[in-house]
């Protein structure tokens, strides 16, 4: 069973013809051009009642088979009124790794977008406080990118070594 009503998808496509939809194992996904991402999210929230932002995350498609774009940004929206659930995706490529922040629509996007910034280095324009959320503030890399080596680039060796008599 699809998790999104067809009327919602029809309304979305009527308003934004560039949006494509697909379904996989009962999950409805829409792919949105990054230029109209904020307008689509605003439409879904204000006109279609998606009042809860469940998650914002990202996928790095570097070296992925048949992938044309580098990053896939994912917004998981839920309507607590109709139990609809919708996956809104938008693809980004370097060097334009910036999208409008969704914080004006959902306050909960604040920390979710900070995590995406921390791990993937995607900027959210208009975010009130775009700092790292998990990694230390002096960290310089975005480690969930596929071109980042698993063991890092020596970031973990910068601490002073305490000798036995130094404490």
């Amino acid at each position, binding site marked *: 069973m699809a998790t999104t009503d067809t009327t919602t998808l029809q309304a979305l496509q009527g308003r934004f013809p560039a949006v494509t939809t697909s379904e996989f194992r009962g999950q409805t996904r829409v792919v949105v051009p990054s230029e109209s991402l904020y307008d689509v999210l605003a439409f879904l929230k204000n006109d279609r009642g998606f009042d809860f932002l469940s998650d914002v995350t990202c996928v790095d498609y570097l070296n992925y088979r048949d992938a044309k774009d580098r990053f896939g940004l994912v917004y998981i929206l839920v309507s607590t009124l109709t139990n609809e659930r919708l996956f809104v995706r938008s693809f980004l490529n370097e060097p334009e790794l910036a999208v409008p922040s969704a914080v004006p629509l959902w306050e909960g996007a604040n920390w979710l977008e900070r995590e995406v910034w921390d791990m993937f280095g995607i900027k959210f324009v208009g975010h009130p406080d775009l700092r790292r959320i998990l*990694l230390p503030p002096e960290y310089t*890399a975005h*480690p969930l990118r596929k071109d980042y080596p*698993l063991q890092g680039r020596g*970031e*973990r060796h910068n601490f002073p070594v305490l*000798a036995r*008599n130094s*404490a």
Partner: protein
Amino acid sequence: MAIELPENVVISKLDQLANWCRKNSLWPMPFATACCGIELMATGASKHDLARFGAEVFRFSPRQCDLMIVAGRVVMKMLPVLQRIWQQMHEPKWCISMGACASTGGVFDTYSVVQGIDRFLPVDMYVPGCPPRPEQLIQSIIDLQDKIQREGTLNGREFNLESRQEPKRALVEIPSASLFDGARNPIF
């Protein structure tokens, strides 16, 4: 000149007496961050009864402790906290690195996990295992008691020995160039 001593008087060194008092009254500071912490709690609980070895008083303030038990992996972001807790503890103090992760990073050979706390802290005892059983931790505490009795001094001058200042490595790193070819494929 011979001095007559009563039968109930024992002559010893002051160092030995201090060591005997210290080793039988260790106050652990549980720095438990992962599943090793559960085994650490089991060690302190009734079934394994760490009180038999005089180390049952776990305190969560480093200023009341003299034995830090690092149980679990330590991430890079946590390491300054760990070092600060270690520096806040009174001398004489000791450190047990419990489990594979605290000793070597374990399976977490990633950018965010410290590959052995002994790179940044002095460690007295390593406990292997993932996680170690309580018996292993008890054995390490017994061994640490032996070490304290053997090496300890009243004013802690053994901590200032030159040989104890060098950072230790439980895990010797093999240069990755010898393990991988140019395309990062492992050489067997």
